């Protein structure tokens, strides 16, 4: 059962991600963040619901669209924003940019911008966790585009074969860049694609924080008990274009109606309404929480902004 604290924590997480992304949109036009940004707005429920089940020692592996996964898992907000600005105290020391976030302490050993690339890496991490005899799990986040890559099936087969403690979390936002899912997939059934490798799958509403939480909980507990891997397909939608702060319904591959429909199902709005209804949150506590997080985000941007540029001599450091 979710406690009030759990629920508030999830709401805060989702809202923190949203606020971060909105802030990026606000400042991106200044061209001071000189790195591509792949925004998570609209998809916050997924990382939020999954991570509520995770502890620090669990490991997550993310993609080009990693801000939400990172924050939800407890990645350091200040260092992350500093990374966007290419600063010395960015989480990757300024050498990774927005697509390469890391927080070793928080169980985020790095993300990759090669689509599908993180899937076998997460699988290997799960193997390590198993070999070490822990009850910790690995999570591979990836998109519907990454589901096109054969390395997913190779990884699921291996995970099924070895009964690895891994959760494959596919965030199906229907698009890979501008390419609609059904232009790339013979059928609409990502969550079923693990069945033949003993990776049971579940489809979940990716805009419903608690639905994701419960689906992930089942999979994660299963993995902790040594019962093997699972695949979760969370259907959701990204509001912004593939990259950058703009909406792109003018480009022809998706309609404004489609976007507006999904905005009605904003995961944050839905959850806020639910928590209001349940009495977990009221207008006062909501405003307090917002204010706190807004400040936190502002501070992170200030921190980043004031941080030092990466010293030029770092260029040749860290190769080995």
């Amino acid at each position: 059962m979710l406690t009030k604290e759990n629920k508030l924590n999830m709401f805060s997480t989702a809202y923190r991600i949203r606020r971060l992304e909105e802030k990026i949109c606000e400042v991106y036009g200044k061209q001071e963040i000189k790195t591509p940004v792949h925004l998570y707005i609209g998809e916050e429920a997924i990382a939020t619901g999954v991570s509520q089940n995770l502890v620090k020692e669990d490991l997550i592996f993310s993609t080009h669209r990693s801000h939400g996964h990172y924050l939800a898992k407890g990645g350091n907000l200040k260092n992350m924003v500093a990374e966007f600005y290419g600063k010395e105290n960015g989480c990757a020391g300024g050498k990774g940019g927005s697509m390469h976030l890391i927080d070793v302490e928080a169980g985020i050993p790095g993300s990759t911008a090669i689509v599908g690339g993180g899937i076998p890496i997460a699988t290997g991490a799960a193997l390590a966790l198993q070999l070490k005899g822990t009850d910790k799990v690995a999570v591979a986040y990836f998109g519907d585009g990454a589901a096109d890559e054969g390395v997913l099936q190779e990884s699921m087969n291996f995970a099924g074969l070895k009964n690895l403690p891994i959760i494959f979390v596919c965030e199906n936002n229907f698009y890979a860049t501008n390419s609609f899912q059904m232009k790339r997939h013979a059928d609409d059934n990502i969550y079923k694609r693990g069945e033949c490798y003993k990776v049971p799958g579940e489809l979940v509403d990716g805009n419903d924080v608690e639905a994701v939480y419960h689906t992930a909980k089942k999979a994660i507990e299963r993995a902790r008990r040594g019962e093997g891997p699972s695949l979760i397909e969370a259907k959701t939608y990204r509001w912004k274009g593939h990259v950058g702060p703009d909406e792109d319904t003018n480009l022809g591959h998706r309609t404004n109606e489609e976007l507006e429909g999904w905005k009605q199902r904003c995961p944050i709005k839905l959850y806020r309404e639910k928590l209001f209804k349940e009495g977990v949150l009221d207008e006062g506590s909501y405003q307090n929480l917002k204010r706190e997080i807004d400040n936190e985000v502002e501070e992170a941007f200030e921190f980043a902004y004031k941080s030092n540029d990466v010293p030029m001599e770092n260029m040749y450091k860290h190769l080995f």
Partner: protein
Amino acid sequence: MPWTKILAENNKLIDTDIDGDKKAGREITYREALLEAQDQLLANDSKVFVYGEGVDDAGSIFGSTKGLHEKYGIKRVFDTPLSESALTGVAVGAALAGMRPILVHMRMDFLLLTLDQIINHAAIWHYSFSGQIKVPVIIRCIVGRGWGSGPQHSQSLEALLYHVPGLRVYMPATPYDAKGLMMEAVKDGHPTIFIEHRWLYDKKGQVPEAPYSVEKGKGRVVVEGSDVTIVATSLMVHESATAVKKLAEEGIKAELIDLRTIKPLDEDIILKSVAKTGKLVVTDYGWHTGGVASSISCMVSEKGFSSLRKPVKRVTCPDIPTPTAHNLEAAYYPSADDVANAVRELCS
């Protein structure tokens, strides 16, 4: 992908007067030249088809495939799943069955998923079957740069392909060559890695409207000179041209060679120039160690040993993955200044 609408740093780099060698009475961009080549190939040869992630969307590979799917239909110009490995095999198989596929990757880095099909298959097929069948595949790929593209979206991996027998590697620097070499690749009918640079897309130049091809393995003396030879490809031709201008003001007459294709490589044009100048700077966009520049340097040291009056100099990226912080990124890439400095050292 277009990281941002705001990327414009490239304009100053390609603001050179380097152009194709034919006057055509018509200027178009590198992007338009690529588009026109594919358009004409599709129009004139029903065996040609074009496919890859995003060829039919609004971005349409930075504009280089714009409108083709509407004109030729989605059977011949189509978007694909993100299955680079299989889709490269698809190109090989379609070619073996008589088609002339053009496969497009938005970034050269993604080729790394496909080298089994390129090296173990496409490259060996014609030879290992004693010439009975050809593999007329063109793989277009674009080298990215800037705005924090980072270690996985900016690699210029031509050295990996340069080493492999059975492949062609083309690296056009001008709109004229972009069109002419694409035509050449289809005519030639052997597996060709067609490397474009993202920052050249806005470059304008003279391009004839009628189809033509540019002979592979023939470099071009872009600027004549007698003091030192500079050998370059792709974007580095433009950086080098800027360097040549500066050097001229200092009284150094550098000869600039655009290789156009590195495989086949025009050894003669390099050796002839070095025989005249006795000094050589080779520049490319790959990493320093084991890159194409080092291979060319080696070739000249072997075949032009007696001409060389100074050791060859290489101007390349350093041996590190591409960093993303803006200041590091700016320092990472070889520039006109680096080329000029290399020349100055040789000529001092």
